């Protein structure tokens, strides 16, 4: 069969491969190349070596600031989202009344697009700030920061919750029952049995929130667009702004994008390594 099928490469694999090559692979290679050039259109690219990479970190470029902001954001987002999602998942696996309804409600925000989410929360956060402190979200970077945290929590808690529920439901009931009979306290059961057994879900959720936080663009654009004075600009938005906001900085923007890609790739490989290890243990 295999030999027979092999002849059908053009029908089965080629179309996807062509589309992929045209819209992704070639642009990717061109992107790497352009990061070493100065250009406004591709045809006028001029080789400049590593100067774009140096410029990316110079004063006046907000890349480092965006990196720090994004990292802080990612840490806080990962912790808050996973703690909330896990706690809710615990509650929803206790066979309470209305579990399905709750699950439906908590998951729903996840389906709404980032731009729409951003404007929903801009209305609410500005409303709260104006009516309590008399300021708005552009007043201080910390409002934008916590605004983004609240927004991401709202969006992702439901998603992570679903993954945790699946993980918790996979724990054999005999185990927790046995622990109960042995007189283990609730905390002991939680930390000795539940958490170790849902570790695969925890790894997955941690990395999902982490990469999601790092790649965030739409929400950032709609909620703060970087205000005040680019202090809430995250990496993806910073790259976009460098690229399209300033004539003559396209190369720098592309160089930033390459660095960004490398960072995401490293994160992905760490994840792959960790999950592989876990699978071996199991």
């Amino acid at each position, binding site marked *: 069969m*295999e030999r*027979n*099928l092999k002849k*059908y*490469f053009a*029908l*089965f*694999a080629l179309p*996807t*491969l062509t*589309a*992929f090559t045209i*819209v*992704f692979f070639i*642009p*990717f290679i061109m*992107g790497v190349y352009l990061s070493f050039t100065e250009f406004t*259109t*591709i045809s006028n690219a001029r080789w400049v070596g590593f100067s774009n990479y140096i410029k990316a970190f110079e004063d006046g470029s907000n890349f480092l600031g965006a990196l720090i902001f994004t990292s802080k954001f990612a840490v806080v987002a990962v912790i808050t989202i996973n703690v909330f999602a896990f706690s809710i998942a615990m509650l929803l696996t*206790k066979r*309470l*009344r*209305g579990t399905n*309804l709750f*699950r439906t409600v*908590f*998951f*729903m*925000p996840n*389906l*709404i*697009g*980032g731009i*729409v989410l951003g*404007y*929903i929360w801009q*209305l609410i956060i*500005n*409303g709260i700030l104006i*009516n309590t402190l008399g300021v708005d979200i552009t007043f201080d970077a910390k409002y934008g920061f916590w605004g983004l945290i609240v927004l991401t929590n*709202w969006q992702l808690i*439901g998603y992570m919750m*679903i*993954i945790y529920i699946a993980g918790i439901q996979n724990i054999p009931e005999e185990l927790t029952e046995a622990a109960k009979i042995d007189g283990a306290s609730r905390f002991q059961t939680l930390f000795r049995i539940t958490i170790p057994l849902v570790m695969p879900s925890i790894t997955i959720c941690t990395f999902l929130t982490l*990469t999601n936080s790092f790649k965030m*663009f*739409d929400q950032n*654009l*709609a909620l703060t667009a970087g205000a005040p004075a680019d202090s809430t600009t995250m990496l*993806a938005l910073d*790259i*976009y702004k460098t*690229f399209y906001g300033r004539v003559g900085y*396209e190369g720098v*923007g592309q160089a930033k*994008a390459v660095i*960004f*890609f490398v960072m*995401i790739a490293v994160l*992905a490989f760490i994840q792959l390594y960790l999950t592989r290890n876990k699978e071996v243990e199991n």
Partner: protein
Amino acid sequence: MNNRERISDTVKVIFLTVLAAVFLAPILIVLMNSFKGQFFISDQPFQLPNSETWAGLNNYINGMVKIGFLKAFYYSFIITVPSVLTLVLFTSMTAWYITRVKGKVSQAIFYIIVASMIVPFQMVMFTMSKMANILSLDNPLGIIIIYWGFGAGLSVFMFAGFVKSIPLEIEESATIDGCNPVQLFFSIVFPVLKPISITVSILNAMWIWNDYLLPYLVIGNNYRTIPIAVQYLQGGYGSRDMGALMAMLILAIVPIIIFYMLCQKHIIKGVVAGAVKG
């Protein structure tokens, strides 16, 4: 169940109810403000509409006219549905082929396509839009090919994972019966892929429907999808009309909620499958 447990369960249910209300509140607040005049929204979003601030359906009418919501809905629809169909059909074929035909070429294709999943969009946004323009893919039809290329990573990955779990015997016996690979795929393999096809469809549909930057860069000036239209309200016409914005947010959310209500089970299942595999 003893008394103490019953009380503690009640407390939990109450807590969850409050939390659910908090989760729903943002949407309800936007809904409420969508009926208020545009200058009464940003300063007092928590006030119910009154006779002075009530604007009826004006915001909806305004917004629909200003950004052409119906058109935006149309574009979003004619981009999302064919893109998803294309992706499901062709990437399942590809995934089946490279899983069944073992060899270095298949493996290389698999890893390169799957690796594209981790590449952030910013890496290729400029060169890809340029490419799209050169090849005249910058229209609602051409963008289907772009989504095909960009969605290939996740879709091939998920289909390939599923194909591996299908026992070879069925396919082999069909081959002996005289099926050629095309018949084999469409009459035997593809129906078996149905559950994973649903998952792949849902994941891609959610992504493409809500996508902003890709369509904005490729076709944004001529064809505004819903996210682009919403963003365009921001300053697009000199100043943002808060009333119209509120109404458009609601109109953007409604189709999603309807879709969710109809296919909730599949969506949740699909999302989990996508997460665990991705």
